[in-house]
């Protein structure tokens, strides 16, 4: 019996038909960290190849979006921003929203976009969505610095905003946002492998979700009854906490913040389990 155990220890790789639910080989992901890095570089670099402005596009995108919002939602629709400078309000929430929307969208296409690579070579599949989380974070950092510069301008020269010390929560909020984007992304990517019906709903659903998140309006605009439904969206408390910290506008609600954290973690767990199941058979189903 002892011999048998020794013999089993010798093998580096086991390929089996059945696997446990949470069978993630963290050590293996660590071994492939160079690949993770390459995927991140590829995501970032390939975007601005053959452009003149290069990485500057990472900054121009949110500025244009924010300017359009200022015009449409601010000037034409006359939505309130609770006294916060409009450009700052929109730029802040667009930066966060774009991180979620882009990361989610890219992760949800993990399987379909990498089918040819995954059909030819093995690597820990979780590296693909993880790379999107990180490359998105790099973009967000660049975009956030822009927001921060404008923020400093309004703070020191215009005295138009009254931030709170809770802006220190920012890294934590980002982490929760990343976990949520990751979890929802891999769940959808796994669910659309075999039956692609969900893809049709996603494109539409993500647009709808933006309006169900206080991106272009402050939550205070909604009626108390309506607010309850908005809080159910785990993104709401994150955006509100962000605005409360930096802009002094918005509602910091610890109960709903905790709800968002739990929501994100549970979603990520379910996502990883599903992803793991699908990943093993994916090549046969695509």
């Amino acid at each position, binding site marked *: 019996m002892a011999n048998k155990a020794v013999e089993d220890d010798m093998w580096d790789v086991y390929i089996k038909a059945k696997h446990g639910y949470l069978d993630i080989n963290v050590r293996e992901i660590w071994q492939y960290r160079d690949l993770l890095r390459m995927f991140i570089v590829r995501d970032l670099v390939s975007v601005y190849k053959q452009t003149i402005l290069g990485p500057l596009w990472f900054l121009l995108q949110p500025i244009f979006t924010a300017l359009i919002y200022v015009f449409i939602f601010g000037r034409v629709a006359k939505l309130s921003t609770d006294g916060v400078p409009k450009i700052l309000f929109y730029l802040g929430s667009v930066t966060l929203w774009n991180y979620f929307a882009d990361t989610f969208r890219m992760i949800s296409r993990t399987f379909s976009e990498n089918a040819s690579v995954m059909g*030819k070579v093995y690597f820990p599949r979780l590296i693909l969505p993880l790379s999107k989380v990180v490359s998105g974070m790099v973009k967000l950092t660049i975009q956030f610095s822009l927001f921060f510069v404008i923020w400093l301008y309004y703070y020191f020269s215009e005295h138009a905003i009254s931030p709170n010390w809770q802006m220190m929560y920012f890294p934590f909020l980002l982490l929760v946002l990343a976990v949520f984007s990751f979890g929802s992304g891999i769940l959808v990517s796994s669910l659309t492998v075999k039956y692609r019906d969900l893809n049709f709903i996603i494109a539409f659903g993500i647009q709808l979700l933006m309006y169900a998140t206080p991106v272009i309006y402050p939550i205070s605009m909604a009626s108390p009854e309506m607010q309850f439904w908005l809080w159910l969206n785990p993104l709401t408390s994150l955006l509100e906490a962000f605005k409360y910290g930096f802009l002094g506008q918005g509602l910091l609600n610890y109960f709903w913040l905790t709800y968002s954290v739990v929501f994100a973690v549970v979603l990520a767990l379910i996502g990883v389990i599903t992803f793991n199941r699908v990943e093993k058979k994916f090549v046969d189903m695509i």
Partner: protein
Amino acid sequence: MSKEIVIKAENISKQYRLGEIGTGMLSHDIRRWWAMARGKEDPYMKVGMENDRTKKATSEYAWALRDVSFEIGKGDSLGIIGNNGAGKSTLLKLLSRVTGPSSGEIKIKGRIASLLEVGTGFHPDLTGRENIFMNGTILGMTRKEIVRKLDEIVEFAGIEMYLDTPVKRYSSGMYVRLAFGVAAHLEPEILIVDEVLAVGDAEFQKKCLGKMKDVSVNDGRTVIFVSHNMSAVQSLCNKAIMMEHGMVKMNGSCAQVINHYLDSNANSNTTKEWSIETAPGNEHAKLLKVELVNTSGEKIATSFLEDEVYLKITYRCITDKAKLNLSISIMTNKEECVLSSPSITDTIWCGKPHPSGDYVSYCKLPSFFFNNLIYSVYVVLVKDGSEIIASVPNSIIIEKTDSGKYRGGYFGPWSGITRPILEWKTERV
């Protein structure tokens, strides 16, 4: 003391569903899930038929692999051969962990890298240098290793000038060279190679196969190689597995398995025999049998280029004292005539009066004459030197195969309808 086992496959099977994924599949999924939830066996694992694509499907599931078991020792180079659809590629996919088995288990010791394709993960917009890192890390190299080998890879591929140009500007040849350059510098303990060698020019193929041989012989690494190119398998591998309909048909030394494969695969019409009623000919004489035999007189299906074989023709003389002789032509499968040869060198019976009875003629087909092609034999029976009694085009075929021993390291196709070994001599003047 036997070699240390580095790969051990135990009863691996792989099931595929035939047809399209659609609404019908949902009901199967639900039933399967229900069975699993009650702790029962997957109801669809039991059904399924043997994987023979020529038969009409009788079930919605097919087994691409069924109960495949084998072991590979350290430093072995194993060739996997078999017809299309025999399960070779599925087996490779399982070994490279691209997809999982439906049942069974594979155990692997050591770092494994697979080359099912060259240039996996290449991004057209990235430069050659960036893609070397991309492709290398996908294949399991670390950044450090790549940095160390970068110069070697670039030199191997011969693309130094274009290193910082996006690969979408590369010619297809350069692209393949770069991809191979990375692949050739992998240093895994186990290397899995699919028939990727079918691309690239001859010189480059030689370089790659040489590198692979180097890997298995000199470095003691284990290589698994799938190919239809018997010459490449024969010269690279020491062991081989023959697959058929998803099962291991034979497992043994490379030469043995290849011979078996060629024999079982050979075209069936290597002998032609007629009953006396249907035999071609007339009231004077008839052809009875045409076959191919080796030097010991045994019937054979295929032979190597270096083998001497005999065409054995049996005929019957009915009219006493008929003056008979034979003539053959050998044609390629494109109906080009390679040669014609009447039996005039047979001084005993050619054109001489034959007492009635049966006769057997042998025609020697020399070694190192044919190329590795399939030829057909045109047989003619002649009376009185000019009257054609029987004329049989495509009587039998001659299949010549290349053992890989006389290629001088080149593995590409060898042109020419014959392939004699000519004498070469070079002098410095």
